[in-house]
């Protein structure tokens, strides 16, 4: 019955989030959190076991299949967004630029935070390395939604908006790569078995993706296409959860396979899946919020360090990225400020890590990243003002106008 109440409250909050009650003019921070879905994270933290206790650990355990479904869906959508033709066309400098901003933030966060994690870890150095890597991976991720919204609203020119969005898409690969490494280290008794499990997840995703491409091929009826798509996503998520491998990685492999072999069908599948993307995402972030242990004081200590180090990493990484891509991409002068928003994938990474790697350290990683992501989302609104209203000396660069024209 409590689960039912939770679903109903999500539905009510969803209606509220889309209503005029959250007017950006009156409550800008709240409106921003509602639009990005992070309001549901806060709702989850509030209703979860560590605060109000409406949902207990037992309820969360029973909702693990729903969480696996959310992670699998996110993975499939991520994989479907990969466009192999476009990726092949991108010059090396764009990849280097993406790697620069995400890699800098990764090292800025992972290396300093490794020290306290080693001292508080019960799983030894290897466990602490895995946890620090996950903190770094979550820090390396940025969300491009502010840039896209600013471009659509006419506050940022198209080339700059798309440039930022492209860089934030490329950092997803860093996050997923580190997740795979962290799972190899932490999800099994030895690294060889961990590698086997990651390969199993990818193989499962490839098989499901190929099958889904075949199943949806020549389906003309929209209801049937939607049903088969949903069935395929549920199958890959469910199979991964059943085999205790990563639904997120399996989903990415499934989506990417579908994008590669599916041809035009993959576009229709993406559209069909897009219809359930928002509700599934909201339920997922709500459950991630429920999993936060708000009374873990170490997490509260580490969180400001995480946010601060990430901020510095993004500022410096933004400069590197801008310098590396100056011949190929038009990027805003203060790129680092555009990369502060963290986005939902960071939550997916730590949720996945928390599900598959047992112990208090993975839980602490989740606590730090989830709370840090909320703070980053709030900071991002202010930070982006520096991107759309930069000092005149920085914005007037004649070379940029030539690249925009090109």
């Amino acid at each position, binding site marked *: 019955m409590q689960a039912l109440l939770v679903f109903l409250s999500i539905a009510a909050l969803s209606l509220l989030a889309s209503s005029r009650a959250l007017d950006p003019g009156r409550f800008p921070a709240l409106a921003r959190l509602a639009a990005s879905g992070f309001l549901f994270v806060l709702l989850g933290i509030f209703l979860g076991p560590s605060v109000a206790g409406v949902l207990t650990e037992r309820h969360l355990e029973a909702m693990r299949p729903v969480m696996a479904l959310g992670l699998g869906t996110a993975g499939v959508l991520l994989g479907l967004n990969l466009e192999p033709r476009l990726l092949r066309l991108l010059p090396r400098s764009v990849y280097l630029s993406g790697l620069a901003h995400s890699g800098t933030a990764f090292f800025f966060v992972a290396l300093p935070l490794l020290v306290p994690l080693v001292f508080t870890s019960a799983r030894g150095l290897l466990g602490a390395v895995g946890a620090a890597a996950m903190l770094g991976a979550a820090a390396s991720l940025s969300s491009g939604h502010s840039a896209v919204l600013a471009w659509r609203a006419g506050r940022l020119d198209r080339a700059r908006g798309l440039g930022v969005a492209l860089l934030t898409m490329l950092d997803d690969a860093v996050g997923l790569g580190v997740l795979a490494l962290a799972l190899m280290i932490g999800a099994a008794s030895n690294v060889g078995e961990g590698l086997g499990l990651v390969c199993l997840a990818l193989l499962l995703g490839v098989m499901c993706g190929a099958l889904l491409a075949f199943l949806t091929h020549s389906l003309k009826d929209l209801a049937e296409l939607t*049903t*088969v798509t949903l069935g395929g996503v549920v199958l890959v*998520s469910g199979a991964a959860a059943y085999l*205790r491998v990563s639904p997120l990685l399996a989903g990415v492999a499934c989506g990417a396979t579908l994008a590669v072999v599916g041809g035009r069908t993959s576009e229709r599948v993406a559209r069909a899946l897009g219809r359930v993307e928002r509700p599934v995402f909201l339920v997922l972030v709500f459950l991630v919020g429920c999993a936060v242990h708000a009374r873990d004081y170490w997490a509260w200590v580490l969180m400001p360090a995480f946010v601060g180090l990430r901020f510095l990493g993004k500022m410096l990484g933004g400069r590197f990225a801008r310098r590396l891509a100056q011949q190929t991409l038009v990027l805003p002068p203060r790129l680092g400020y555009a990369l502060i928003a963290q986005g939902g994938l960071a939550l997916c990474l730590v949720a996945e890590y928390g599900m598959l790697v047992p112990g208090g350290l993975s839980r602490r990683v989740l606590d730090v990243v989830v709370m840090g992501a909320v703070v980053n989302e709030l900071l991002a609104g202010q930070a982006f003002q520096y991107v759309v209203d930069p000092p005149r000396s920085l914005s007037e660069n004649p070379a940029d106008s030539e690249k925009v024209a090109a």
Partner: protein
Amino acid sequence: MKGAVIRLLLLMVLLAIISRAQVLRADSGTPVMLAAGALLLCGLFAGKVAKGLGLPRLTGYLLVGVAVGPYALGFIPNAGVKGLELVKGLAVSLIALVAGTELRLGLIRRVGARVALLCAAVCGVTFLVCFGATFAIKPFLPFLADMTVPQALAVSALLSTVVVSFSPTVTIAIVQETSARGAFTEFLMALVIIGDLLVMVAFALAAGLTKASFGGGLDVTELLGGVGWELFGSVVVGLVLAVGMLVYMRGVKQELPLFLVGLCFAAAEGGTRLHLSPLLVSLAAGALIANLDEHAGERIHNAIQQAGLPVFALFFAAAGAGLKLDSLLTVGPAAMLLVVLRGVAIWFSCRRFAPADDPRLKRYLWMGLISQAGVTFGLAALVSRTFPTFGPQVEVLIVAMITAHELVGPVLTRRALAASGEIRADDAQGTA
């Protein structure tokens, strides 16, 4: 159809691989989502294969569920199928909501009395035949053999009440699939719905008598209160839901399928916990909406057709996967005897008592009354919970009967509708 067969086979190969891979893992996770995805996809393509073979899609859903389920090939673990109970409740509510929109006052005035009379006759004759047969084979049924005569009579009555029940779910799903419309279809749907109301009342009385025969005492007030709450409480809650739906449809005008799925989910879950009948709750809601606002009734009908395909495919495939084939072996002879007798009793009572003005009712109506599914499952589970000494054995017997009825019932229902000449389209989308 060839394409659907190939796709179905490939799906089964993938499930076999996943099932083998699980053996290599020391600990496995929860299989609920695996069961949901596998049954949904297999059900969908099995429905296409069944249609290609001239069978109802629903039979395809059921058969593929049996095939991949825990009691045949074992690709889907039992825990996964059990975890889908929520989907079953949702599907029953959705189906009942659609059925309710068909129950217009005009129809009830036109055929209500005749349907009620025939229903009483069919249920009465079937009950007497099954009751007599069960009591006659008392020495051969382990759970009856050691009981005193009054106890055996009470338990036989209880068992026969459950055996009489029909399946509105299957009937409505087949009607939806075939887009059947006409006097025969209306009569059949009204009969299975009223039949189930009759069975609910009779079951409560039989359960009270059985408790009394085992020394539990007969509390008439409690008995009537329970029946009254289930029937009238369900109708009242259904009316409240109907008002909520009408307000939403007039105020929001968006995402109706999603809203209806959410509301039916709430009706199924909440109804069960409040000891109401989710079927009756949704039926009452649909009927009120259709009679207050015909246009709103049509909108609900169309909206559920959009959301119906995945829910129905999953529901019936899960029902197939849950059929305990091994129970057919243990209580097979007794169950088969009751299946045959029930069929003969229904056939006889329809031939004898159906209104003479429409010869189709005398000839074909019995075929539409053979199916058994959700309601019968629910009553069998209730017997098992209420009478722990003999209930589980009665449940096994009833489940064995349901297995047989689920496999032949949908085919017969479709044949009845085809013979009546009221099938309009053979490939209505978004339904069973």
